[in-house]
């Protein structure tokens, strides 16, 4: 298999978080596609029961089972690899866990009917998380006789930035509750994966005040947890404006030379009689102000010292073509 030089060589679990509305699921999907280029096998996993992956890839709702949902972009050297998807829910993960460790197949499903599984995953707050991260850790470590690891990479569409620290720091959460129980042992194994160099946490953000603040807070929080590695900051929905800096400033201040715009419009054969130049100048002014605000936010992000990628805004909305476009953008920036 061709090895490209990427920023995350050796990483097998990519945890993707972000504030609501930043496009976390979309970026996780694009990253999975990007990682699946060159014939690699990738598992894309969601844990919040929203069926976001099914909607993103335009497939029917996904079960608690690994299903092939897409093919990564191929290159000259290799055809694209497969992207599998899994929707993990704590209840199914618990039943699976009981089967694996105690052979409690029938008891598990009987108890599920009684609502006991729901009860158990609710009663111990950390349990829910350890089951979900546990499923990801299992997929990362799983081996296939012939080809070594089953998956070259696992991408997890994780809970939002505000909850990510607690979600990943399950060992501490669970050990507060279960000082000895078997879950504690399970949690410790999971933690070995989460805290290994094979795992990183990427933050999806927009260049707006609140998502940037949450990203910086999230990165700072992970650093205090010891061994959980912040990965990239992925700035989503960027819209560059083809103006030199001086004009950008002028546009933001509302001091754009409208006469110039009128000349340009005339030479393009457009009629300026409806105040077109003025209206376009207003559009430029708004966009310029947005961009100047974004540059400020970008500088704040740069203080985090994490690699930063930028993904373009797709004005027509995200469909499969748009998703592949984002996947290429990630590859070009060596995210995958």
């Amino acid at each position: 298999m061709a090895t490209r030089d990427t920023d995350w060589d050796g990483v097998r679990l990519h945890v993707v978080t972000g504030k609501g509305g930043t496009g976390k699921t979309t970026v996780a999907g694009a990253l999975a596609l990007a990682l699946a280029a060159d014939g690699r096998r990738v598992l894309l996993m969601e844990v919040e029961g929203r069926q976001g992956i099914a909607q993103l890839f335009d497939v029917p709702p996904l079960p608690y089972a690994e299903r092939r949902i897409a093919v990564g972009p191929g290159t000259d050297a290799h055809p694209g690899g497969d992207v599998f998807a899994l929707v993990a829910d704590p209840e199914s993960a618990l039943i699976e866990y009981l089967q694996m460790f105690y052979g409690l197949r029938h008891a598990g499903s009987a108890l599920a009917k009684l609502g006991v599984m729901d009860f158990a995953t609710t009663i111990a707050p950390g349990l829910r998380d350890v089951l979900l991260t546990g499923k990801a850790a299992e997929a990362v470590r799983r081996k296939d006789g012939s080809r070594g690891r089953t998956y070259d990479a696992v991408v997890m569409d994780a809970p939002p930035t505000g909850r990510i620290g607690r979600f990943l720091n399950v060992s501490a959460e669970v050990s507060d509750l279960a000082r000895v129980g078997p879950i504690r042992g399970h949690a410790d194994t999971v933690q070995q994966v989460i805290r290994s160099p094979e795992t990183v946490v990427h933050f999806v953000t927009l260049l707006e005040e609140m998502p940037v603040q949450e990203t910086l807070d999230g990165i700072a929080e992970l650093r205090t947890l010891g061994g959980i590695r912040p990965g990239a900051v992925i700035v989503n929905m960027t819209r560059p404006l083809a103006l030199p800096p001086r004009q950008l400033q002028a546009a933001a201040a509302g001091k754009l030379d409208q006469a110039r715009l009128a000349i340009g419009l005339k030479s393009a054969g457009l009629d300026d009689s409806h105040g077109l130049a003025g209206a376009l100048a207003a559009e430029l002014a708004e966009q310029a102000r947005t961009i100047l605000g974004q540059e400020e936010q970008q500088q704040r992000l740069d203080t985090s010292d994490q690699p930063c990628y930028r993904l373009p805004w797709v004005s027509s909305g995200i469909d499969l073509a748009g998703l592949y476009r984002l996947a290429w953008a990630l590859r070009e920036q060596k995210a995958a």
Partner: protein
Amino acid sequence: MTGRPSPQLDVDRLIDDRRTRIIVCCGSGGVGKTTIAAAIGLRAAEHGRHVVVLTVDPARRLAQSMGLTSLDNTPRPVRGVKARARQAGNDAEPGGSLHAMMLDMKRTFDEIVEAHADPDRAAQILANPFYQSLSSSFAGTQEYMAMEKLGQLRRADEWDLIVVDTPPSRSALDFLDAPQRLARFLDGKLLRLLTAPAKVGGRAYLRALNAGFGMVTGVLTKILGTQVLKDVQTFVSALDTMFGGFRERADYTYQLLRAPGTAFLVVAAPEEDALREASYFVERLDTERMPLAGLILNRVQQVPAAHLSAARSLAAAEVLQAALSGNTAKGHAGGDDDAPARQLTIAALQLHADRMTQAAAERRIAGGFTAAHPLVPVAEIPAQAEDVHDLEGLRRIGESFASG
């Protein structure tokens, strides 16, 4: 086309109607709910109402925009609320007031325990490891406590309008369901049977069940370990006097949400996910017979030069681009006086085409919602070029609510 237009949501009429006592802003995360709630609160205060805004979002910038360094579990007064000048006359309307607070779910939970248990027992509960997890990280506690706080504010009757911003849940519906779920859990038979089987052992039908529960506790011990179950047991026996109370409190706020004087505003951005959630919510409110005032479609792309289509705009940009490269090829770049004008115009036309495409996509997505819910009134809030920094920014958003 998308059929007939939706009725216009008149937010001003809603806040000017003194019978409106509670406005609940709900919707999925990242749609600007908190900002909308604050903008509604400010506008209502400037229309003479005495308002408290209850938020669950620890957004520092929002607190700062209201002149507060941070928000806490107590309503704090917001300075700088202006009285609105009467439309026709000389004198301003009698001044309103604005308070803001942020939910501290653990503190709120602690207060319930302290209010309902004697000091010794309360201390015992507060120190219990299981209680500590439950009150700080249990899924649903935040929603329950937000509702609890809403009930408290309503009972206190110090404000004539409460604006609530709902927790950033996994799903917008959690806000309706989670309080009931937590109440069912705390008051539930399962919890008590598991932890105190001796109490109920006397009844025949329960005896029959006991064998089953023996297996249940067995499995739970396997999963959780004995310590957890012991903690739960201690917690439950300490909480004994409060049983039933949680359900009752959840029911009270649920009824409050249905009462006349409550209005739900569903907030969404013109995006697929947000509007899908909004649809679920609208349908659910209808099922529950809860009063939906309408949909606030936030951050809608405005295009000043709307009469120039994306296609014509791009075509014109291409013409200019061709002219530019033609001149460059002929070596005239330096002498082309129109080059800067052309470059500027290309940038403007490309931006314009992009915005037109986006606006069209937004209309298509919003059209899906309005076609399915033609009777739901809609108010659009234009996308703001910059983040909201101050009361003036909130006021500007509020101006989009102006009637007519």
